[in-house]
């Protein structure tokens, strides 16, 4: 059987992955959801034809979203996750006993259902008693909140589909309002490599620096994502991601990881010159 899945990275670049079988396919009210079984990447979750995650490399993405802010402020208790219905971010969060509340705002109930059936190693974490799931538009959820969270993680899909509102100035502004006075916001920040995404990186950066006093960008390598080179945003009201890192305290927690380490933490904020320039131009 010669069945291949093409993930379009740009109009003229694509990544082809051989598919063993299609495990699931459905159209929800929000989006089309597919689960594919592949030899190299394990199961792939695709939304509207784009790879959201693969079993092989999702840990890189999820660990980078969670452990970076947790090492800077290990006292974080109240966390809001926007998106993240797959449970990947929550799986990392529940490793911390000190976290008390994890609110997850996932607009699409079908996504959660599909993940709990086909990707339980991530989605089982959603059954943790600290987790509260809201099936609502994240933009709407955040609107009325004030001084509620220590950490907001924006685990959004790409900026052109249903998640468009999660990449806007108003959304970042209201995240600021929803955070405590020492709050941190982490967002997936797209890739700096291909032209369209690089432009998006700039737009997002420009919008975030207008809302937060401390804004830094860090990077990770996620082979199944366009170009593999991925950025993340660290925006905060008080903590600096490098000056305030609490290595010893974090290491004492004994959190098990496969990608993140505090010695890596110091390196990932060192960006290639072209990426630094890209961000500088946006400022």
């Amino acid at each position, binding site marked *: 059987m010669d069945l291949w899945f093409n993930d379009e990275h740009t109009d003229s670049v694509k990544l082809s992955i051989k598919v063993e079988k299609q495990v699931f396919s459905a159209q929800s009210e929000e989006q089309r959801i597919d689960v594919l079984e592949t030899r190299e990447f394990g199961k792939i979750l695709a939304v509207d034809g784009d790879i959201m995650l693969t079993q092989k490399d999702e840990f890189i993405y999820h660990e980078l979203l969670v452990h970076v802010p947790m090492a800077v402020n290990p006292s974080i208790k109240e966390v809001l996750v926007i998106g993240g219905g797959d449970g990947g971010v929550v799986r990392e969060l529940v490793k911390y006993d000190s976290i008390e509340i994890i609110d997850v705002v996932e607009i699409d109930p079908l996504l959660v259902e599909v993940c709990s059936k086909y990707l339980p190693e991530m989605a089982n974490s959603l059954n943790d008693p600290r987790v509260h799931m809201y099936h609502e*538009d994240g*933009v*709407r959820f*955040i*609107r*009325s909140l004030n001084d509620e969270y220590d950490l907001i993680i924006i685990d959004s899909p790409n900026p052109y589909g*249903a998640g*468009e*509102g999660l990449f*806007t*100035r*108003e*959304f970042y*502004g*209201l995240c600021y*309002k929803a955070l405590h006075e020492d709050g941190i916001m982490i967002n997936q920040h797209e890739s700096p490599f291909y032209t369209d995404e690089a432009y998006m990186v700039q737009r997002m950066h420009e919008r975030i620096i207008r809302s937060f006093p401390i804004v830094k960008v860090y990077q990770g390598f996620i082979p199944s994502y366009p170009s593999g080179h991925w950025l993340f945003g660290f925006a905060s009201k008080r903590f600096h991601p490098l000056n305030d890192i609490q290595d010893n305290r974090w290491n004492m927690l004994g959190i098990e990881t496969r990608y993140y380490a505090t010695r890596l933490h110091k390196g990932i904020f060192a960006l290639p010159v072209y990426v630094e320039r890209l961000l500088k131009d946006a400022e």
Partner: protein
Amino acid sequence: MDQNRAPIYEALERFRKMRIVPFDVPGHKRGRGNPELVQLLGQQCVGIDINSMKPLDNLCHPVSVIQEAEELAADAFGAYHAFLMVGGTTSAVQTMILSCCKQGDKIILPRNVHRSAINALVLCGAVPVYVNPKTDHELGISLGMEIEDVKSAIEGNPDAKAILVNNPTYYGVCSALEEIVRLGHEHGMKVLVDEAHGTHFYFGRNMPITAMKAGADMASVSMHKSGGSLTQSSFLLIGENMNKGYVRQIINLTQTTSASYLLLSSLDISRRNLALRGEEAFEKVEYLASYARNEINRIGGYYAYGPELINKNSIYDFDVTKLSIHTLDIGLAGIEVYDILRDEYDIQIEFGDLGNILAYISVGDRKQDIERLVTALADIKRRYAKDKTGLMSNEYINPKVILSPQESFYADKESLPIRETVNRVCSEFVMCYPPGIPILAPGELITGDIIDYIIYAKEKGCSITGPEDANINYLNVIKEEG
């Protein structure tokens, strides 16, 4: 009639298949002569940018597919006849007035009409009798005409030839249309309705009454607003007491003889779409608008107003698809919120005036975009809310008409610094755009209040248009004798 048909569209499809060799205009010849244009608009689009010819009929004198399209449109709108218009709703409004008024004839109209109506008076020399539209002082918006005021205008001017009604206004306010039609007809006057913002009334469920249903003689319908057709395309509807041939002649006085088939086919297709699926589509629009109203009112400070305003007179009915929001209570002028939304949030809304903004909701909107708008408003309040003292609300300034629009437009004039024009007669338009309703029209007396208003609106960032001097530092006034 079979509303599944779209005769112009079908004719264009047949035409495409025939692969006719063009030795006629337009000279780009299906785009081959202008590759950059094809790159921009696409082959589909330039391929049907063609000239009138036998198989495609002719808008100046329709006998085949355009005629059929007009009949289908008339049927869909419940009109005696419908004309396809390619010069915008402006051309439809002007045709209404030119069809009913000649030099020196009187026409009764509210002062908050679109500039196109007063422009028509400049063209034909008719004289306006203004009815003061009521103003909601809280919101600073002008409302509909009250029946009593229309009555006294009729009694004071029994020789008037026509009454023009704005229905609905930009803000969604409807007048007591049936009553006005009855009054007008009783006194032998034609009733003309500028229904630019009311296309959906003809198709939605539980909507305010339409001009044709109310028995009006003519109505201008902006298909390109809520109807979904291309910008500049529009319908002119007439009732059975109008002379169809004469109206066509009036249209042909100013209408192009090379009507664009892009516009014509967009009217044809959009009419079909509305007839078949309009009810469902506008139900969605209504839902989105009322959802947005609730969410915006939950933020606090903003007032997104709706049908609760209805008073069965100056607000006889309300168009619930309109999303108008009063902003003064967060300490910002509407125009300021309008600018902030565009400059800082990448959201373009329809317009902002001194106290309100209007976001246009249509079949093309998605829930997520509504969420963005509401969220941006919440964030603007967080960042900018301040005390509202010193903010001016829109005010209706009752105009004093000294000369007819035509006389004053063509009179000898001089240009004066704006501050020095008080007590002179204006010879040009001054208006905030949008919504394009004149603050001053040719022939009106300039007062200190009006000048203050113009200067304030300019300071707040309203785009003021009309005068010859684009910076509005000078105004043209009529030269005084001696």
